[in-house]
């Protein structure tokens, strides 16, 4: 096939436009949004003490047969403070979802007081004192929230604060889909 010289003249321009398009697309992407390696994988098995009762343990086995929202938080994390009132609100509103709190590398006493004072959105609260559960979850830092479906599979990971916008745009459609 012979390409005419006229057409050849446009090759650099086309190449330039394609590269510009790709780079422009790249600029729009948020590099801090890393897709978790755990999406569509089972929730890691764990057994950790109950935040409110050291003698009791909470295991990953208890997170089966329903939709669970696993929120990793700490009292030393300011964004978690910002997120808390909203978590409280949606936990009261959403009856189909069980809220699980993972208290991450925190002072247990401070965490208990925090929830007693400001309200407790979590049906289950467990303690990850050394952050090892955080590593198993592929965490980068609190607050992070994982959605677990009825089969115990992680379906979504949200890094950062959950607010009205994120809840309505991401969580509501996802929960409706996996219900």
């Amino acid at each position, binding site marked *: 096939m012979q390409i005419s010289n006229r057409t050849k003249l446009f090759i650099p321009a086309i190449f330039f436009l394609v590269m510009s398009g790709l780079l422009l697309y790249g600029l729009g992407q948020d*590099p*801090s949004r*890393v*897709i*978790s*390696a*755990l999406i569509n994988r089972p929730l890691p098995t764990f057994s950790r003490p109950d935040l409110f009762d050291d003698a009791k343990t909470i295991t990953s086995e208890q997170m089966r047969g329903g939709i669970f929202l696993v929120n990793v938080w700490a009292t030393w994390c300011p964004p978690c403070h910002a997120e808390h009132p909203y978590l409280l609100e949606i936990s009261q509103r959403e009856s189909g979802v069980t809220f699980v709190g993972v208290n991450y*590398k925190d002072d247990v006493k401070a965490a208990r007081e925090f929830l007693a004072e400001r309200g407790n959105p979590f049906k289950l609260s467990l303690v990850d004192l050394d*952050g*090892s559960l*955080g*590593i*198993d*979850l*592929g*965490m*980068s*830092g609190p607050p992070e929230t994982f959605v677990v479906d009825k089969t115990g599979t992680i379906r979504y990971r949200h890094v950062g604060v959950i607010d009205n916008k994120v809840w309505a745009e991401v969580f509501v459609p996802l929960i409706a889909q996996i219900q």
Partner: protein
Amino acid sequence: MPKLLVIVLVSLSLLAHNSFAAIEELEFASPENEARYHDLIDVMRCPMCLNANLSGSDAPIAADLRTEIYKQIQAGRSDDEIIEFMRARYGDFIMYQPPLKIGTAMLWFGPIVLLVLGFFILRRLLITSRANSNQEALSTDELQKLNVLLQDSKEQTR
């Protein structure tokens, strides 16, 4: 007084610049294990800071992952096992160097392909320009005509 203040501030800032994140004091069973530890924390990326490796990051999660790597080395796990452990949790992102697969082929081979392509385009341009210059060379017939014309113009200007 202000001069002294400046000196103090400048030396403090120099100190800050030279400090490194990974300063945990660790004891290893062997120098080989210590070297492995440093290699691993150099090739792995901090999940929080995107552009720092585990050895160069101050993030709490980077410290946790360094401790995890240390523990696994002490427990006698191999480099491959440790990398697999991290990859299962953090994906390919944890490795600074992307693995070679279909999705990343462009990263690995794109620059080479572009270089070769550029080389061929340059070669073609050189060949065509040489061919053009050959075309422009005059035949003996044309040379004679040219000489006549030049002669004429010289005579005219005289």
